[in-house]
């Protein structure tokens, strides 16, 4: 068949036909290659810059390196907040072919828990194989040693070091330092509001409370940058450019570690607050609120159960009593009240009243009882302060009226923020007519003024306000701002403490200050003074004032019997003082919740604090003859 067909074939015609087609094909091929080259020219020459940029965008990634947080020291240079190295065990799954076996051997070596294994499994599933996965956080030194010895069996595993905030004194400084914890969505909002997203990129922790929060800006530092080349998996190949982070500033506080620990030990098992402050500068030497809690719990993430425990505790450990505790000031404000009365000519140095143990509001039957049921007898302003005579101040405040009391007390900082450099502070309440109207939609009654006259009723203060007010007294009207920060320990920065912009309190006669302050010295030095016993034999002179605040109202005819009533309904004991009397150096405030009388419970604590303070400063201070 084939032969037959071939025999009639015109080979040259066929050749020519196929050649024509071949030429057509060749032309088509040249045309197609032309299209390819045109397209490649467009990509590589015309659009070169565009693709070059996109290629660089692909491979170059900018990583933020979080700065190390500044440390916090006490005034002597003792570290109060540090960054400790912690070690975690990590694995890069890609680098091992025997993962299951490795994990099995590791489990027996470090006795990994079920939870750790489960977490690892989950993380492994959700992570890329070249990214390190943490198997155990916070290795113990034993873990580290065990692993290091057996390291050669675990090629893909490594120990990763990182810093973790640590507060070595635990609960002793919680209400001063606060703590840092993981940044949450609320913090993120704040960071965004301040426009600091870039600064916090890479930062995991942020100050949540206390100094850590207030000076977050100083402590945080500036992040560094690392420009790296990454592959398509995001794995870093090499570093192209590096800017080192600037660590946060170290802070030195005014707090004195010894005084702080002493104060903490004095408040052991009590609820209350102690503040010790330099009278001349406002430097806080010690600030304690009890009970406290361990801030380190919050750094590693407190469990819900632990947190609920703290939150629901009857003792309210989360409250900073020194700045947020609102207490009736009770008799501690009698010196200020006396000053106002003298300045307003309501009383004079020699004014006396007769105290039968009660006082009745004129034109009414309402009777206010003195703490001393049988009365103080004939009382002048000295006696009234030294022995804390209520009746004297009932009458005096009645004559003064709330409209004169309220603005004057504000000059001492009551009802105002103290200016202390932590954010957790309340203004408490300095009541006035307008305040009561707004709060209770009720007019102000004379009876309200009389309660205020002895620091009760609507009036509440915080221990830090009391401290500031006492300092202003000791400085004869010159205000100061209490502050915790002493210096920023960095070569280029110097810190100047905030200066009080408030005008000094001006009285008509300087002698009024003498009267009030002498009377306060009498409280501790006169045999009849309420705190005589507490300060007997002190090597320094002290001016003070006790306060015993009622927690519940006692009916007019009832007597107070501490033994009989519920512990939580017992009086708050308070004492404010400064020393030495002639040239005040230090101011103290002690508030003890439900402890009883101020002179008998709070004053002895002030004595011990002052003893400690003068013992410390004695060698340094020039010998003073008293």
């Amino acid at each position: 068949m084939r032969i037959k067909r071939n025999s009639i074939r015109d080979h040259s015609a066929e050749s020519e036909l196929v050649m024509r087609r071949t030429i057509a094909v060749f032309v088509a091929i040249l045309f197609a290659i032309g299209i390819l080259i045109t397209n490649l020219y467009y990509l590589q020459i015309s659009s070169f810059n565009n693709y070059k940029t996109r290629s660089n965008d692909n491979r170059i990634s900018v990583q933020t390196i979080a700065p190390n947080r500044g440390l916090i020291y006490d005034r002597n240079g003792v570290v109060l907040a540090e960054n400790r190295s912690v070690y975690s065990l990590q694995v890069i799954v890609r680098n091992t072919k025997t993962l299951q076996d490795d994990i099995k051997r590791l489990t027996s070596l470090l006795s990994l828990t079920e939870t750790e294994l489960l977490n690892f499994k989950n993380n492994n599933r959700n992570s890329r194989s070249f990214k390190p996965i943490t198997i155990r956080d916070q290795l113990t030194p034993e873990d580290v040693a065990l692993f290091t010895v057996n390291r050669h069996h675990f090629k893909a595993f490594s120990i990763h070091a990182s810093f973790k905030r640590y507060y070595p004194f635990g609960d002793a400084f919680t209400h001063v330092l606060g703590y840092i914890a993981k940044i949450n969505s609320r913090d993120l909002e704040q960071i965004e509001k301040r426009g600091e997203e870039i600064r916090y990129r890479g930062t995991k922790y942020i100050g949540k409370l206390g100094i850590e929060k207030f000076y977050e800006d100083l402590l945080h530092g500036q992040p560094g940058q690392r420009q790296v080349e990454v592959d398509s998996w995001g794995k870093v190949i090499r570093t192209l450019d590096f800017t080192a982070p600037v660590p946060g500033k170290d802070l030195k506080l005014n707090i004195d570690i010894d005084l702080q620990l002493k104060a903490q030990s004095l408040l052991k098992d009590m609820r209350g607050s102690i503040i010790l402050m330099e009278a001349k500068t406002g430097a806080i030497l010690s600030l304690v609120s009890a009970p406290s809690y361990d801030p380190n719990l919050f750094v590693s993430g407190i469990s819900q159960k632990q947190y609920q425990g703290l939150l629901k505790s009857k003792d309210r450990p989360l409250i900073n009593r020194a700045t947020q505790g609102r207490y009736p000031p009770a008799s501690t404000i009698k010196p200020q009240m006396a000053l106002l009365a003298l300045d307003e000519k309501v009383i004079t140095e020699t004014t006396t009243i007769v105290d039968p143990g009660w006082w009745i509001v004129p034109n009414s039957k309402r009777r206010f009882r003195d703490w001393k049921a049988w009365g103080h007898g004939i009382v002048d302003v000295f006696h009234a302060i030294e022995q804390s005579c209520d009746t004297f101040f009932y009458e005096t405040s009645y004559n003064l009226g709330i409209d004169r009391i309220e603005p004057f007390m504000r000059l001492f900082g009551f009802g105002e923020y103290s200016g202390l450099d932590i954010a957790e502070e309340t203004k408490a309440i300095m009541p006035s007519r307008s305040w009561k109207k707004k709060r209770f939609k009720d007019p102000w009654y004379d009876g309200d003024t009389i309660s205020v006259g002895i620091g009760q009723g609507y009036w509440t203060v915080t221990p830090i306000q009391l401290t500031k007010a006492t300092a202003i007294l000791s400085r004869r009207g010159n205000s100061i701002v209490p502050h915790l920060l002493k210096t920023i320990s960095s070569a280029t920065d110097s810190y100047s403490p905030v200066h009080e912009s408030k005008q000094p309190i001006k009285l008509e006669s300087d002698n009024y200050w003498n009267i009030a302050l002498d009377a306060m010295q009498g409280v501790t030095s006169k045999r009849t003074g309420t705190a005589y016993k507490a300060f007997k034999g002190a090597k320094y002179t002290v001016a003070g004032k006790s306060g015993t605040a009622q927690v519940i109202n006692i009916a007019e005819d009832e007597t107070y019997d501490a033994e009989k009533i519920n512990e939580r309904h017992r009086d708050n004991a308070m004492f404010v003082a400064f020393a030495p009397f002639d040239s005040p150096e230090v101011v103290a405030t002690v508030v003890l919740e439900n402890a009883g009388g101020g002179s008998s419970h709070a004053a002895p604590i002030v004595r011990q604090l002052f003893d400690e303070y003068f013992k410390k400063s004695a060698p340094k201070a020039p010998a003073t003859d008293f």
Partner: protein
Amino acid sequence: MLSPQSQRSIFNRLHLDPYLLLGLFALMAISLTVLYSVAGYPMVYRQIIRLVVALAAMFVIAQIPPEWYQRWAPAIYIGCILLLIAVLVIGHTGKGAQRWLDLGFTKFQPSEVMKLIMPLMVAYYVSEFTLPTRFRQAIVALLIVIVPTLLIAKQPDLGTSILVASSGIFVLFLSGISWVYIGIAFALILAFIPILWFFLMHDYQRGRVLTLLNPEADPLGAGYHIIQSKIAIGSGGFWGKGWQQGTQSQLEFLPERHTDFIFSVFSEEFGFVGVLLLLSIYLLIIGRGLWIANQAQDAFTKLIAGSIILTFFVYVFVNIGMVSGLLPVVGVPLPIVSFGGTSIVTLLAGFGILMSIQTHKRFNIKR
């Protein structure tokens, strides 16, 4: 073209073609260079082994005179169809498609063999009759083409089935089929496209076409590969980033760097200059191939030579077209340069046939 016995060169006696060999070795050198850049020595070593095997196959095939192929074409064609059916029944699944027959010692892809057999079979059939091919013969030839094409498309392997079909159709074209029929065929293909789209194509295949039309629509999904490939090519610029300096390829932004996307790697590292050189080499091979076709002594050899070289060009065009964003990504390697076993053996076997045609003419004349 008569060459006296005394003038026969060493190449002619070995049944090798120096021009084709030069081009092929140049491509192999480029291949090994780029493979070393993206995959290091082990890959180069494996490729060398494959090249040696493929060159041996080429050499053996070049020794066999074209008459032998003509005689055995129908039998091999039918055997190959049976193997394709076997693949569908008992084949090995790789990457979601059944393409392999596991022979125990090696895996074997019958569709690759079909790439070679198809032009032989069609050429065998049409050269039974006088050229130009008539309508009736063309229909039969199309049936010869369609059966294996559908079997391969069913695996599913769209890229190979298109290549197999086109290698057969090229023979028909070269055999002088009337332009009228070609026009009608084009019209039919255009009409067939909607049917293909809605009834025959898999979702992933449709996705590839859509991605081609607008890769930026899904830059992290289906469009990712083509975008990264274009970035690689474009960022190569005129001179390229330099050997082993291609960030797109070295940092693994490019997919399939050593196989289908090897052209992108080459373009990134050697730039437009390198691309022009590479295309020149291809053009040299193609030109030489067409020259051989033109110089061949009978219709059968002319047709298969032309078809083999045209298919080779289609490889080049489809691969470069797809990695530079002109065509959908269909999984066609860059001939000779891409890493891959079966494909390179098939390709060089094809060149073996070309060389056989070029170097066995004397015997044809004698007959």
